[in-house]
């Protein structure tokens, strides 16, 4: 056991079923995670009070510690939704991805990743990525094929596509933040508020510091005159709203009946 001060938790079938089902999703939104938790309690322990999600997950993580994996919580960069993924703590590479993709496909991802990190907006255009197809390691790949591979990355929630441009999915950031910060320490952008890796965000036009959209939303909440936390200059961008899970659910319930997690697109 590691020299950890955290007392090791106990796994019950509730936790095991939760973990099994969580693993079938690459990443899951908090609302769905809570639903999943309630389902597992219902199956094994109807009368027990459902643990607070944070405690529930901390308990599981204390057991996962010896396996160098953990259920990590993050927030989507575009609209601040809380998400969860099971991530690897030990290796700094993408072992999960490596089993689903061939050598040239992985290299394509790496090229896209480098373009994304290097870009000003956090997005890399499809054209720019496809132009690098000749430089890929492994079997030769045509542009048409590369387009499909990029779609495969979108389907598996490693990349997000918006109007022909690609950025990292929240899942990829959760899984690979450590790897990215270690591999590209001079090129990565960091959020001035939360100090985590930043791919998409807003930046101060005077001093250049950057902030995640959800961090901007929280920091400038109900502030009539938003100013840069670093240089105090007027913050010129539109301040997004803080993500409100209650409001989100209300509109969801009005729209449709209970949907299964399978049909939900993240």
């Amino acid at each position, binding site marked *: 056991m590691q020299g950890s001060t955290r007392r090791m938790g106990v*796994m019950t079938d509730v936790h095991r079923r939760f973990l099994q089902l969580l693993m079938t999703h690459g990443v899951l939104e908090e609302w769905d995670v809570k639903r999943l938790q309630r389902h597992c309690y219902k199956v094994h322990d109807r009368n027990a009070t459902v643990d607070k999600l944070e405690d529930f997950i901390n308990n599981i993580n204390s057991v996962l510690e010896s*396996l160098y994996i953990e259920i990590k919580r993050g927030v989507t960069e575009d609209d601040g939704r809380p998400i969860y993924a099971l991530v690897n703590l030990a290796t700094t*590479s993408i072992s999960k991805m490596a089993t689903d993709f061939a050598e040239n496909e992985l290299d394509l991802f790496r090229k896209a990743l480098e373009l994304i990190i290097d870009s000003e907006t956090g997005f890399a255009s499809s054209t720019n990525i496809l132009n690098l197809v000749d430089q890929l390691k492994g079997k030769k790949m045509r542009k048409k094929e590369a387009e499909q591979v990029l779609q495969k990355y979108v389907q598996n929630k490693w990349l997000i596509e918006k109007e022909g441009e690609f950025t990292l999915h929240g899942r990829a950031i959760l899984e690979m933040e450590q790897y990215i910060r270690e591999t590209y320490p001079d090129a990565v952008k960091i959020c001035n508020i939360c100090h985590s890796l930043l791919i998409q965000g807003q930046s101060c036009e005077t001093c250049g510091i950057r902030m995640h959209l959800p961090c901007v939303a929280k920091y400038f909440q109900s502030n009539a005159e938003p100013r840069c936390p670093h240089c105090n200059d007027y913050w010129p961008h539109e301040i997004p709203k803080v993500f409100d899970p209650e409001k989100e659910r209300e509109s969801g319930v009005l729209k449709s009946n209970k949907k299964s997690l*399978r049909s939900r697109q993240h």
Partner: protein
Amino acid sequence: MLQKPRNRGRSSGQAERDRDWSHGGNPGASRAGEDARVLRDGFAEEAPSTSRGPGVAGPSPQGARRAQAKQLELKVSELVQFLLIKDQKKIPIKRADILKHVIGDYKDIFPDLFKRAAERLQYVFGYKLVELEPKSNTYILINTLEPVEEDAEMRGDQGTPTTGLLMIVLGLIFMKGNTIKETEVWDFLRRLGVYPTKKHLIFGDPKKLITEDFVRQRYLEYRRIPHTDPVDYEFQWGPRTNLETSKMKVLKFVAKVHNQDPKDWPAQYCEALADEENRARPQPSGPAPSS
């Protein structure tokens, strides 16, 4: 311009990172057998000793012991993740693959790593690591948690086909005396609107599913019947089916579909009962490999 990894002052070169990238990272295996020997020594002795043999100087016995323990944990972790990922695709995992992709230089302590991984898989995830058939050196994970209908809604993937085409075929095989001709399977499935040559809305390519995918996943055995013209094949249950379900469970499924009681098929019911008794008897072999 983006600082490329090869210019980094990191100790590992580009080549090793490439290897990490595509082979899922192997923090321990890239080192020489030296580590493996030190690790093995750590296993054998309980009390720390100040002299651990030639050539192993440097860190205190305390520090070395902790480092060994961590190396061991990392290896077990890799093995657990490897098995989980491989099993998700429902392809039995070959011992040779485990040795090649995960164990590497730690071959000597493979049985111990294996045992620890099996224990973790059971305690943490609720999966039992079992050998597909005795002496086959291939393994699968069996879920010790009973699947529940609502699980299907909560999944992010297809899951094991507990209901659906596979169950129907398994039911057919059992009810027909544990073996059935392929032509008979299609005669039956046609009545449900499932054809070997036509794309199906839910099952996609039923012929491929039944004769290839389910066979590869070891749910079914598919053998050519000799001296048949035109060529015909026969289906039987595969080794995975016997591990993941049982004759009684399949009989209950068939009964449910017909809205009847399993006892309405006395011959099959007796056979299923006998199978249950067999399973209740304690099994001799555990998951650990023989050498």
